[in-house]
């Protein structure tokens, strides 16, 4: 190659993989919105300062205290503590779960579950209903208990599953066919991944569904043969369903006909995929991390995206350094979950690390500056979401970008997500 060839090649240089212009355009638009919001805040502060000066007084702007108002009931009894799990059904209404279990070493655990309801986006909670003295026969240790909601329907699922059709006031027990390890509720019904044996015993995970009006659970005859107890169930549309066994087996399953037939997907990082997220009928992401690494490092984090429902993949982000969250994924922190709230919006809470968000389909990640470790996320749309730290603090976003503490107290992360460059992995 001579100099002319070199300059010709330089003029025609392109990047591999090609840039996705739509993603970049949306990310740019979001930056513009952020600038405008910042300008409004600065203008507001300037106005306050001018007014304070004019009036000759000192204006003290203090953050409103949330702790006092959190659990207060409005005419009804409040909750005794902040819910450990939340499930919102719209921008202001949601349900929360509080469980109290007696767990003897050599006898069945017994739990009391209180369902809270909020009508102000999670700031205050009142007790809606209660399921008392639930005995988990034959189980040792804490049972699985989780919460889901849709409209006025509330489900408490796990080792035993209960449902309410009146906003959590009264509950009846469901018979899905075993322990529910994953649950998704849409308008056309509730779906669950069910096993009829304990996690330590080998048996098949089956997919089952029930209509919103209740009744008998229907077990899908042709659901994939999964024996691993922990699976992720994702249903981005009424027809499209993904099942991810979290066993590092390198495969996931996809149905495009509401679970009647399934195809196997080969995953890009077969031994370490920890979470799957999907948006629409064909866009899907998988997050990988080294499960054997320390939780504070979670090395070789990698995000891959597929535009064809999981048949072909391209890597969109890797961990690049302990100190550079902006741009790519940080080395520190094991990904707990992955949630897609829009075509280009993703959220992932890291264990003992930050809550990260991407506004461009996973290419770039930003720290949400939520100062507690997040264990649960609940979104009703791309703008409205809640993040819980397991009953200590509750955060909310109303613009799909910025998060605010609305209840409880922050739990400082004990272990900073740091690592030396020797732990930085590249695919």
């Amino acid at each position: 190659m001579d100099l002319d060839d070199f300059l010709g090649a330089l003029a025609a240089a392109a990047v591999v993989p090609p840039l996705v212009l739509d993603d970049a355009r949306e990310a740019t638009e979001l930056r513009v919105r952020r600038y405008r919001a910042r300008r409004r805040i600065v203008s507001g502060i300037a106005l306050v300062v001018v007014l304070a000066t004019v009036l000759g007084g000192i204006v003290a702007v203090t953050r409103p205290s949330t702790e006092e108002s959190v659990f207060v009931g409005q005419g009804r009894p409040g909750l005794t503590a902040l819910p450990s799990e939340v499930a919102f059904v719209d921008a202001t209404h949601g349900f929360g779960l509080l469980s109290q279990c007696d767990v003897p070493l050599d006898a069945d655990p017994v739990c009391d579950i209180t369902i809270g309801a909020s009508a102000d986006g999670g700031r205050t909670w009142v007790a809606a209903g209660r399921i008392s003295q639930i005995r988990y026969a034959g189980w040792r240790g804490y049972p699985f208990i989780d919460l889901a909601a849709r409209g006025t329907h509330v489900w408490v699922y796990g080792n035993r599953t209960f449902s309410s059709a009146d906003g959590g006031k009264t509950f009846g027990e469901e018979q899905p066919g075993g322990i529910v390890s994953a649950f998704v509720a849409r308008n056309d019904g509730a779906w669950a991944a069910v096993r009829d044996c304990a996690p330590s015993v080998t048996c098949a995970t089956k997919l089952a569904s029930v209509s919103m009006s209740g009744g008998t659970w229907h077990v899908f005859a042709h659901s994939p043969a999964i024996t691993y107890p922990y699976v992720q169930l994702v249903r981005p549309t009424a027809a499209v369903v993904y099942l991810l066994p979290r066993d590092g087996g390198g495969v996931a399953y996809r149905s495009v006909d509401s679970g009647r037939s399934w195809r196997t997907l080969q995953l890009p990082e077969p031994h370490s995929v920890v979470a799957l997220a999907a948006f629409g009928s064909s866009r899907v992401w998988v997050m990988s991390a080294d499960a054997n690494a320390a939780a504070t490092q979670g090395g070789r984090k990698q995000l891959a995206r597929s535009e064809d429902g999981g048949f072909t993949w391209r890597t969109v982000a890797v961990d690049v350094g302990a100190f550079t969250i902006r741009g790519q994924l940080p080395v520190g922190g094991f990904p707990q979950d992955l949630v897609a709230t829009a075509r280009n919006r993703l959220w992932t809470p890291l264990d003992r690390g930050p809550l990260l968000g991407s506004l461009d389909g996973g290419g770039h990640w930003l720290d949400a500056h939520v100062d507690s470790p997040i264990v649960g996320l609940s979104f009703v749309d791309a703008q409205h979401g809640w993040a819980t730290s397991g009953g200590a603090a509750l955060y909310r976003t109303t613009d799909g970008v910025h998060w605010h503490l609305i209840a409880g107290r922050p739990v400082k992360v004990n272990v900073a997500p740091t690592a030396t460059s020797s732990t930085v992995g590249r695919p």
Partner: protein
Amino acid sequence: MTDFDEFFAAHYERVVVSLRLAFGSSSDSEDAAQEAFAKAMLRWRSVSRMDRPSTWVYVVAVRELRRRARRHVHRFSASSQDGNDQRDIGTPDPADMVVTNAVLGAALGVLPARQRLAVALRFHGDLSVKEVARAMGCSEGTVKASLHAAMARLRVHLGDRDLDGANDGS
């Protein structure tokens, strides 16, 4: 489609690739480009009236990347006192230099940062010497000298004897 959308579609990729050729880091380059385009969008009424609005974007993006590089250097020099082994952010990482032509990446790698930036803006960004000078925050003479030195170094690296008229076109 608005004027800005058309401008974005026409120039975004060229800006990103120019920055990537010059600075190496793919994520920082895209971040800086998006930052610059966002600022252009905020001031689009005045930016769109400029002779070449893309030059304004290059100026802002290069400034943004330099600001980041300075921040990284401070941060990394602080952490290196703790014994951490960190790479120099100012030098392109070959793994980040993801361009279609491997020879291109290797040849650019032999140039110092200032020359690499001048070459990338001039020959990939298609900026005039005057515009490159504006983007780099230096005089036209400095840009011409950088380009001349870069061509000489590239000529040696590529084993080419024909000197290119790199200083034309201002």
